């Protein structure tokens, strides 16, 4: 038993991804319980620090090299996943119901939010040129974005940002891992000079709602 395999066991069993800090805490708590129960604990383990865990994670990654299981870092946490090339052999296990993929409008809306967060609904609509009310609701329901507060502008509109689940869904570790992040972050947002869909909210909302049903 060593730190590398302890980390492996924890990640194997954990329901959610764990950061190096969380892994350290889990191990520290276990060691505390072991000590209290009068069990002997390896001295190296007793003094475990976050940097030891980071090193153990690296070793574990190497150790899994020849396996169909790999270590993945996403959304600030580590987890064990099957390697993508094995996915064809797992299909029979998954059953007929596939998790719904994001629709094109949802993806476009999400892209705008991802690069420009926090962002209000009106700002998203200015970029996309269509109403996004229904799409925003879907994304919030799926836990991919959430309301981050209100903008400090007249009307104090709600502003949205992506969640950790967003990072996990797209296999990103941080927002800086977004493709072309530098370029898209800098682009000048169009101002709301255009008569945006907001001016005919009902009409458009109905349209979007009807559209989404179709997708």
């Amino acid at each position, binding site marked *: 038993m060593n730190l590398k395999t302890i980390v492996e066991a924890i990640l194997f069993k954990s329901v959610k991804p764990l950061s190096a800090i969380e892994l350290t805490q889990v191990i520290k708590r276990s060691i505390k319980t072991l000590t209290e129960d009068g069990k002997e604990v390896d001295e190296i383990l007793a003094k475990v620090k976050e940097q030891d865990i980071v090193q153990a994670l690296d070793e574990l990654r190497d150790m899994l090299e020849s396996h169909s299981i790999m270590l993945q870092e996403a959304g600030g946490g580590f987890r064990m996943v099957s390697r*993508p090339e094995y996915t064809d052999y797992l299909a029979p296990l998954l059953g007929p119901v596939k998790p719904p993929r994001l629709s094109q409008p949802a*993806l476009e809306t999400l892209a705008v939010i991802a690069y420009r967060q926090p962002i209000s609904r009106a700002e998203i609509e200015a970029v996309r040129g*269509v109403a996004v009310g229904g799409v925003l609701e879907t994304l919030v329901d799926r836990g991919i974005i959430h309301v981050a507060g*209100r903008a400090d502008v007249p009307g104090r509109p709600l502003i949205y940002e992506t969640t950790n689940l967003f990072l996990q*869904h797209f296999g990103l570790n941080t927002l800086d891992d977004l493709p*072309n992040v530098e370029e898209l972050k800098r*682009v000048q947002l169009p101002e709301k000079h255009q008569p945006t869909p907001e001016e005919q909210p009902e009409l458009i909302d109905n*349209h979007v709602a009807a559209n989404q049903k179709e997708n």
Partner: protein
Amino acid sequence: MIDYDTPGWRITLQVFEGPLDLLLYLIRKNEVDIYDIEIEKITDQYLAYLSHLEEMDLEVAGEFLVVASTLIYIKSRSLLAVEQQMPEYDEADENDPRWDLIRQLVEYKKFKDAAENLEQKALVQEKMMPRDPDPAFKAQAVTGLGNVQVIDLIKAFEKIIERAREKEEFREVFDDKFTVSEKIQHIRKLIRIEGRVMFSTLFSQISIRGEIVVTFLALLELIRLKQLTVFQEGSFSDIVIEGIQKSE
């Protein structure tokens, strides 16, 4: 012009995500750079598409019409003699609607491409599967009563009894102590003095259930009579009750 008889055209009818998406499609179809679009040509094709939608009895969304009017405006501007054009017709001109539209298109295209990138990432990620959560882990977390003692159970039951007795009492007080019209007078007076009252303040001094009901009914009546308005400054903030100013 677009060949409507091409089978592919009909299929693409439904897939535009909005007016900007349609414009990008037309630009691509004409094989021109966004910066070199010929407004006249694009406008004609855009309008042809909309009328085609109408022919098929499909509702044209408002946002498509908004952009259509912008296109027509740009087109009409470019048809004016140069000296009649208001500001200098300059690509970098802030007020040039053509430049605005191009800028919006460029911007939109970047995010559309980014969305495509994200989609690819999601497809790869979909293939990397974590283990399913161990059902034993789940079950353990949710069964049982938690930190509940027998005394909590009795207290809860007594609370129900207490509440039921208040309801009995409420019938009396409804008749005797408090009336809706009296509460209407009270709220009006408060509003006259204070201008506005917080919902929580109005109810905080009342402990008897019957009085709460009567006060609430009075409030509803005043709102119905348009003497009061209630609103929240944020979705989680207290409700504000305010008098409606009447011109005298």
